[in-house]
């Protein structure tokens, strides 16, 4: 069946909180409007259309999960939001992607400022080969904070937010590469939080981690929910259902279904979604 037919041509409905959330969750958000919106947004690698005419709204301060089989364009879509795809020369886009109502791919968009507001944590933990302190202070220093005391405050606050302060507070001057994978990933989260972004993009943040570290990261996402707009790519459906408010299901570059997590996992509208979440294909 042609996946594109089933959603690409569907009319774009303005997303509202009511659409996603069970009533008991409604109080977490203080924003409400779409933080990020895609309209007929396509991403190409050369000729190849990796993400196909996606139209969606991602609501402010909620956790949105992106699921789908490997190679369906989840990472591509996520990396389009903070323009990390700029690093790939062949990559270009059509359609519109709005962040706070501003065109992400506009001619005069400052991608450096955009990335400051849209932080990202990658699949493989990638701390710099520097001390833990310097890792966290890297962003603030870039953006002009040089006062030692202030930096220390930011580092402490960020590490606490990332729930790793207790584990590393006595060795901030040690190289971050000496930590375990799970700790490194939380360092990366803390490093991202230190620049005070509005959006947090997590691309399979736990796929390189063991179950214990995974649980810690998931707890962390729970902690951060409500303070940041979070988008998490995962191919683990339990994880998606555990941590997210809304879920988007991609298949071969097409956004097949987008709904509140509860609804998508219990009562999917699209038969393909149902096939996927019940494990009939992978």
């Amino acid at each position, binding site marked *: 069946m042609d996946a594109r037919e089933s959603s690409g041509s569907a009319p774009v409905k303005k997303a509202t909180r009511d659409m996603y959330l069970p009533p008991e969750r409604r109080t977490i958000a203080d924003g409400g409007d779409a933080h990020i919106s895609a309209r007929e947004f396509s991403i190409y690698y050369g000729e190849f259309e990796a993400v196909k005419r996606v139209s969606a709204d991602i609501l402010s301060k909620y956790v949105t999960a992106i699921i789908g089989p490997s190679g369906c364009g989840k990472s591509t879509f996520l990396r389009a939001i*903070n323009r*990390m795809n700029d*690093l790939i020369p062949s990559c270009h886009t059509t359609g519109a992607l709005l962040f706070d109502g501003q065109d992400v791919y506009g001619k005069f968009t400052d991608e*450096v*400022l955009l*990335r*400051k*507001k849209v*932080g*990202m944590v*990658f699949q*493989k933990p*990638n*701390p*710099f*080969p*520097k001390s833990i302190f310097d890792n966290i202070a*890297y*962003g603030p220093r*870039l*953006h002009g904070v040089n006062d030692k005391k202030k930096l220390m405050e930011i580092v402490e606050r960020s590490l606490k937010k990332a729930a790793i302060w207790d584990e590393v507070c006595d060795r901030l001057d*040690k*190289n*971050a*590469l*000496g930590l375990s994978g799970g700790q490194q990933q939380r360092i*990366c989260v803390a*490093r*991202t939080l230190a*620049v005070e972004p509005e959006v947090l993009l997590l691309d399979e943040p736990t796929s390189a981690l063991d179950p214990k570290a995974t649980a810690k990261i998931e707890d962390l996402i729970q902690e951060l929910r409500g303070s940041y707009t979070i988008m998490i790519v995962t191919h683990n459906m339990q994880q998606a259902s555990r941590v997210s408010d809304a879920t988007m299901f991609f298949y071969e570059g097409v956004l097949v279904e987008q709904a509140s997590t509860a609804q998508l996992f219990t009562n999917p509208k699209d038969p393909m979604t149902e096939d996927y979440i019940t494990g009939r294909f992978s």
Partner: protein
Amino acid sequence: MNIGTRKILDRSFTAVGIGSIVVMAIALMIVVVPIITNGIGAVFFTGTVEHRKMLFSEFKRGDSENLSSEVASSNRYRAKVYGMLTGFEAELETMAPEKKAEYQAKYSEVRAALQALLGPLPGDPEPMLTRFKYGQTRWEKAEEKLHDLLYESKWDNSNPEVMAKEYFVSRAIGFQGTSLVKLFPYVKDNFEEILLPEFTFYWGFITDSSVDSHFFGGIWPEIQGTFFLAIGAMLFAFPLGVVAAVYFTEYARPGFLNSMLRSANSTLAGVPSIVFGMFGLAFFINTLKVSESKSVIAGALTLAIMILPTIIRAAEEAILAVPKTYREASLSLGSTKWNTIATVILPAALPGIITGGIISLGRAAGETAPIIFTAAVSVGSAIGLADVLTSPTPALSWNIYNLASEHEAAAQIRHVQYGMVLALVSIVLMLNLSAIVLRARISKKLKG
């Protein structure tokens, strides 16, 4: 199928591998051992009282009381030699003219041999060149000169079929029946008392300047010149090379110009160094006129051009080896491209960049051809830092060549040449070693 085959193959490959390592090690020993043993002879040797005299009057080193008692003791034995000379000169006057002429010729050979051995004889005018002011300073050289005194070298041309053969005739026989005949056994028997050999550790070989084109003294001007040239080259080439590498890897758009530049760079890396030498002369001295003629700066610039391609290559490779994830992490934090390069990419690439730099430094220190026309002089004193813009300098690589081939008395000062070779090899080796250590330390710091 024979299931033992693979293991036999494995074993034989191992054997071949070990064998080739052993062969290389032996070859290395054959090269290095003579360098070390001969080179050390420039610093540790058996020195004579003449060496100590020389040190005292040329460098004001040594204990004057001790030295004067040594000189006095040596002179007591020499006095007898000189006495024999005056005795024979008087005897010559009484001889018949043709006999006198015959002895006169032989006698002046004896005098020359004695001068070479002991320095100026009484009554000789003060020599102009320092090399003639002293006798033999090294014991093994003194023994050679003793042989020259005792024996006359002749050539056997009797058989035209083969090359002439050298043979020796005792000089004493030629003076049979004269008073001088006693001189030869006397000098031979009292040789040690005359020259007072003593084990000598001449550290000044490293720190002294040379006296009379390396007849005496040390090689400090060469060592210093080598450092000036190599470090000067580095000061130009290293920043330029790193910037070029950053440009090639981070900013250059693929295209015709870029690929031209890259292949030009690779080609430059393979250009023979003499070509750089000519280029340096033509460009830096004749065209740009960085200096009137040869100067340290012209040589350093020439060496810089020579090592630039290597530095660029090493830096490029080091930069490309930095994991892509570092770049992504930095950019995703809102860093600009330049900031990412300066704060993440270059620090992570530093071990590789530094290794390339230091290996190039070693190469700059060792090259001869580029400095022949641009910076090197065969004799000279150590120049001051202020003179690098105008003065040429001696340098180890060039002076080794000079001592080996052009020096008028190369055979007499081989030990200096060996000492220079050892010094140069040690400097280059030390640089490479420090590259390894530095690299290991930075890598360790990066790895945590």
